[in-house]
């Protein structure tokens, strides 16, 4: 049963790690705007050289 103590402590530390990550995400403004990241992922970064061929296949 002594192992339980260690397990509890380990689980608590893992939980604390996630809490720290959460606090970091809030502090780094990730909750400021929850709409645009979902749209931003749709845009491809267009390589500069390809630009001409891209416009033609409209």
């Amino acid at each position: 049963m002594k192992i339980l103590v260690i397990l509890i402590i380990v689980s608590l530390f893992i939980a604390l790690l996630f809490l720290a990550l959460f606090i970091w995400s809030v502090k780094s403004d990730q909750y400021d705007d929850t709409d645009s990241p979902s749209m931003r992922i749709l845009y491809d970064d267009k390589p500069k050289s390809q630009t001409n061929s891209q416009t033609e296949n409209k």
Partner: protein
Amino acid sequence: MRDSLTKEKTTCYHCGEDCDSQPIWHDERSFCCFGCQTVFELLSEKDLCEYYSFENNPGNQLRHFTRDKYLFLEEDEVVSHLLDFQSDTLSKITFNIPSIHCSSCIWLLENIRRFDEGIIHSKINFSKKRLHVDFNPSKTTLRKVVELLYQLSYEPEISLHNSGEQSVSSNKNKYLKIGIAGFCFGNIMLLAFPDYLGIEMDSEFISYFTYISLLLSLPVLFYCSSEFYLSALGGLKKGLLNIDLPIAIGITALFGRSLYEILSQSGGGYLDSLAALVFFLLIGRWVQDRTYEGLSFDRNFKSYFPLAVQKIIGLAKKSTLVSRLEVNDLIEVRNDEIIPCDAILMSKMALLDYSFVSGESSPVQITEGDKIFAGGRVKGAAVQMRVIKAVSQSYLTQLWNHASFDEAVANPSPSLIDKISTYFTPIVLLIAVIAGLYWMVVDSSKVLFVISSVLIVACPCALALAAPFTLSTTMNVLGKHKMYLKGTPVIEKLWDIRKIVFDKTGTITAGSKENIIWQGDTLNEQEQSYLSALANQSIHPLSQQLAAHLNHGVSCQISEFNEIRGSGIQGKTGDVYTMIGSPKFTDQPISDIDGSVLSVKIDGVYKGYYLIKNNYRNGLKSMIDQLTNRYHLAVLSGDNNNEEKNLGQYFPNDTPMSFNQSPEEKLHMIQQYESKERTMMIGDGLNDAGALKSCHLGVSITENMSSFTPASDVILMGDQLINLPRFLTLVRKSKSIILAGFVVSFLYNIIGLSLAVAGYITPVIAAILMPLSSISVVLLSTLGVKYLSYKYLSFK
């Protein structure tokens, strides 16, 4: 008139507007105006046409561009005021751009650096409709950046007072509190699990677990629940027993009792209930405080006025901040600009559009030496004027400084929950005292146990959750139907409304588009000139409208002119006999028409008729009928009373209607109504702003989400106005859902209290009872409102 040939709908490739009669064709794409075409060319030149691939017709219509519009952005003082950060090589600025609306907008605006070398980086905050731009001031200027945005038809809102930024940090705190409370809640519950399951363990373990729980509960008590203590204290200072007081007492009782049990090793304490309680309550608060961040409900006159005008000093012109203007300054105001302060006209003549201020739609002509009021819009050539009153002293501004504006802010009506809690708190305390006294007699060792149990169980968690969840779900549902509330308290205000006052122009009438339609054989040029000449002879409003529509002037002589009242007019041109009038007048019955009909007969032959639409919104009649059952109605219009008769067909006979009302008269009128019963004002223009603010609840109507709306509690899309009765029904029914939530939570409280008074409350029962009551109330609230919206709002 070859309109009829191109009637198959062509929509603008850029903005998606109907191209009316003459689309501009460019590169095999149709555009409604040169503005849209210019934007397209600009984009294709920079190879940014991908813009059009994310959404169909993503653009905004561009209003016409005056070259010096943003001249004032060259002034160092203005620039430094607007910038968030400034150095030699880097400037940061945040724009409010109301026209941001889709994923294409994000893509384009985050790629604007391709237009201008000097722009380093741009980033959008979509929910707040803000654009952050970093640029290099040595390579480009603020003015160029703003002009670029304007040319792309994303006009930024530029004002010198920045507001809203301070809410960011408090929002962050809210998330942090919820996160931490959730973390502690989960872990404390995990540690309490053996207790729930009744597993017997070594007492050594149990004490370890309880000490860890105690440690975990400290941030909950000191950080997460601080706002309940602060609010309870604030209420007490004002002599109010608000809902946070019993919550704060409950939290204290929970913690005190747990602390005692853990330190004396007599039990596991109620820390799991404590964390759960705070966690749920914080979520409730967060839900309640949510707002539409992208919408501005508090615009004052300054948002309407220009930031700067051209001041004339000697022969030179200098861009000057409006707030710096002094009496006797000479200023120049150009076409379509708004006059910032009361002044006297120095140019020979000017055409002013006061629709902003008075609601009167036709422009007024004034001559040299006349007084001009702030808020008018100059039409035509630029005019010069001499300032006679500073901006803060001008007529329109004075209206804003009216006392009623401060009153409204100072006395927010107490919310339903606060009213209940004034009874709730004393009753709970009374029960605690009585129970304590009872146990004092029976078994004095249990007194503290029972009193703390009562306080714990009576903690109105479920009670405090019923209202926020119902209100915010209602607000979301209304938002989906394009009725945007300023916040959840607005719903409580909507319950009290007894009278609804409508503005006319722009509110119950739709925007003024082409509203005269010819139906019948095509008329040739000559026939049209006959009609024009004839219509010009009469002063009847319909004839006047027709004459203005035909716009031919009087190009031929009319003889034997005759006007038959209530029927029509007739006259002779050469030997052609022309008649215009009601269908009866020309013996040509026409039925089922929404509007006025001017039937036309030329040389004895029936040609067809002009349909003059009265512009009232479709479905107005049924909306009014539904509203009259429950509310008193009134009409308050800044326009003349031409339409009184037509309005009479829509509104019940006893509806009070006032016309020719100045903004100030509107305000006084509303105050009069308001003194008798709770009044809701529905209006649109700046001329309604005073009335909207001084009534119990102001609703501003807009046709376009990105356009300006005066300060109000509700922003409603124009095409949704006719659904107002349904919205109001939903709002009224939401009150019964809250009451049902209250009943359920009271039931839980009574069960809990009777257990507590009897001395049966154990940590396990508390840990079950508290989350169960909260969750069931939350479910009841949200599902109840969803059901209502399904029942009342599922139309189309």
